[in-house]
């Protein structure tokens, strides 16, 4: 994770080393790596004169740990839906009341009031998507709408499978595969999952982030990963397709919030309002290729987004996708134990 942060920081600092001279303020955005459209930042800087610095992270927990440690200097962060309640509960987010901002009306109705942020007092949607499987169909052309691709892989894919090292997503998907629910405290199910994962692991190649370019280049042939990344991989290599596991798959929404100890609160609020503008939300999606949750943004997006099955969930798979709640600390401890055993 440090690695991506470094690369992102390097890239961003190079990108903006000759940024706008007439900066009126600044804003430090702490977001997932390879997730922020430079054009969006450019547009924001041009319109507001606020200079933005973007730093990347790889997973929810490292972001949480870094912010909790303090002294970070960031103003905004983009946790996933199942982490937002933790951020709020820990007092790390500012109650910025985006629901009272002028552009709030632009949100699609289903995102205006959500379980993880009732009434949207803290966060604004960044993008949302699913955890599914991406497969190089040149290597395997069978049914890809199943998580058995990962947990009980067909012969062709053995030794060529990557699994995103995002603990919650992996164990959550495995729990659904054995017929249970993410964050369950049912020890029997968790035990089944442990055995399932330990048995599947020898058939995997790696547990990596940064999959888009690697699967497109043929370093791996399948991965448990996120839909937008699958779309980006398909744009590089038309053989890469995305499957929605019918055993059940997780949905998530990354949401932007302002940190409680942000130094540039006004600038951050301007940014929140800015990204709820359809044209700007479209820029977010145009880069990372996930849906954004803002009404009317589709018409500003690249044409290929409108038909992409990675973004528009096909009707038949809609019912098997569910959002994930935050896991309790006890369950998290079991997750970690399974995870350590898996990576030993």
């Amino acid at each position, binding site marked *: 994770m440090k690695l991506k942060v470094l690369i992102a920081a390097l890239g961003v600092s190079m990108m903006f080393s000759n940024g706008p001279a007439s900066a009126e303020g600044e804003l430090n955005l702490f977001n997932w790596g390879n997730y922020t459209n430079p054009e969006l930042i450019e547009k924001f800087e041009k319109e507001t004169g606020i200079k933005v610095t973007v730093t990347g992270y790889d997973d*929810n927990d490292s972001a949480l740990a870094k912010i909790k440690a303090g002294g970070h200097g960031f103003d905004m962060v983009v946790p996933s839906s199942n982490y937002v309640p933790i951020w709020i509960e820990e007092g790390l987010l500012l109650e910025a009341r985006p629901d009272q901002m002028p552009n709030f009306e632009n949100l699609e109705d289903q995102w205006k009031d959500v379980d993880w942020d009732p009434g949207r007092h803290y966060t604004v949607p960044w993008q949302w998507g699913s955890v599914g499987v991406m497969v190089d169909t040149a290597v395997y052309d069978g049914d890809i709408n199943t998580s058995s691709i990962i947990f009980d892989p067909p012969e062709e894919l053995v030794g060529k499978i990557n699994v995103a090292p995002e603990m*919650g997503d992996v164990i959550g998907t495995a729990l659904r595969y054995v017929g249970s629910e993410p964050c369950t405290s049912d020890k029997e199910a968790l035990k089944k999952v442990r055995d399932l994962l330990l048995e599947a692991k020898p058939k995997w190649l790696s547990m990596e982030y940064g999959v888009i370019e690697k699967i497109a280049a043929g370093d791996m042939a399948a991965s448990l990963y996120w839909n937008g990344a699958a779309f980006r991989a398909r744009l590089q290599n038309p053989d890469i397709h995305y499957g929605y596991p019918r055993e059940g798959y997780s949905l998530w929404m990354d949401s932007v919030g302002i940190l409680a100890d942000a130094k540039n609160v006004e600038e951050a609020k301007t940014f929140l309002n800015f990204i709820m503008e359809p044209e700007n939300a479209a820029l977010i999606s145009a880069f990372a290729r996930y849906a954004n949750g803002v009404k009317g943004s589709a018409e500003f997006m690249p044409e290929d987004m409108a038909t992409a099955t990675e973004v528009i969930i096909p009707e038949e798979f809609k019912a098997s996708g569910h959002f994930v709640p935050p896991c309790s600390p006890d369950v998290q401890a079991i997750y970690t134990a399974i995870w350590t055993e898996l990576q*030993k």
Partner: protein
Amino acid sequence: MGEAQTKAPGTGTGSQVQASAERARKARVRAHWLLNTPALIILLCAASGPLFVVIIYSFLTPGDYGGIEWAFSLDGWFSVFMQRDIFEGTLSVADAHMSILWRSVRLSLLTTLTAFVLGFPTAYFIATRPRETRNVWLFLITIPFWVNLLIRTFAIMELIRNKGVINTILMSTGIIEQPIQMLFTDFAIMVGMTYVYLPLMVLPIYASMEKFDFRLVEAGYDLYATRMKVLRRIILPLAKPGIVAGSILVFIPSLGAYVTPRILGGGKNMMLGNLIALQFGQGRNWPLGSALALTLLAMVMVALLIYVRGVAKQDSGRH
């Protein structure tokens, strides 16, 4: 020191001279400490301070969402070595940690060995060049240090990936039909670490060989020693301090390596550095992470102690 100078020489009695000498000595000691203060402050704040924090954290309770609770607990240390089965509740040796530890030690040893096998002839080669050209060769050894570690690691990835340089060449020449899986294996980690730490092996060996009197080698041949014998009985013993120093310099950073295993290893099998990072991230167990970090530190110190003792023995042996 100024005090001592105000006293005119030869005017005092013996005891006065003694007293002033005493004063001068004290002043010197004071000045000595004063001049050392910046270094001491840096040592205390920058080296011991953080270490102290790590030690304290290792004895606390993990917070629910990362961080720590200020309550004493030995669980962090306990779970470095022992684990309670999540489902049966039985206690056993923490075999996940042990196998990660073993993998780290094994890969670090292999890296050290490979670096030695490659580094020793290199150092010998440089040391036997004419004096004027040696610096050029040394310069070539240090050039990779100018490039960022990340970039060098990614460059290796480019070489060994499935559609990378090596596989492409092998496949286009018809030697293999399917690409060889090199990326994301222990082999990749080892190649990466060997490449990155090789100069740390070459330089100390070179330093010990540079002072080497090559007439000894000639003398060996004159006495009908075979090439192997010259190498074993003359060159290796004399280069030993350099070899030991080089091995330590390669072994220690390999043991705690994070970036190389992360990029080239595929993240499927952790090394110690990654295990520690896990505790501060998704594992949300800072005390365990601290205890693991201290365990690593202790291991490094043991390795160093063995080295220091070995050197001391060698020194006393020479007298």
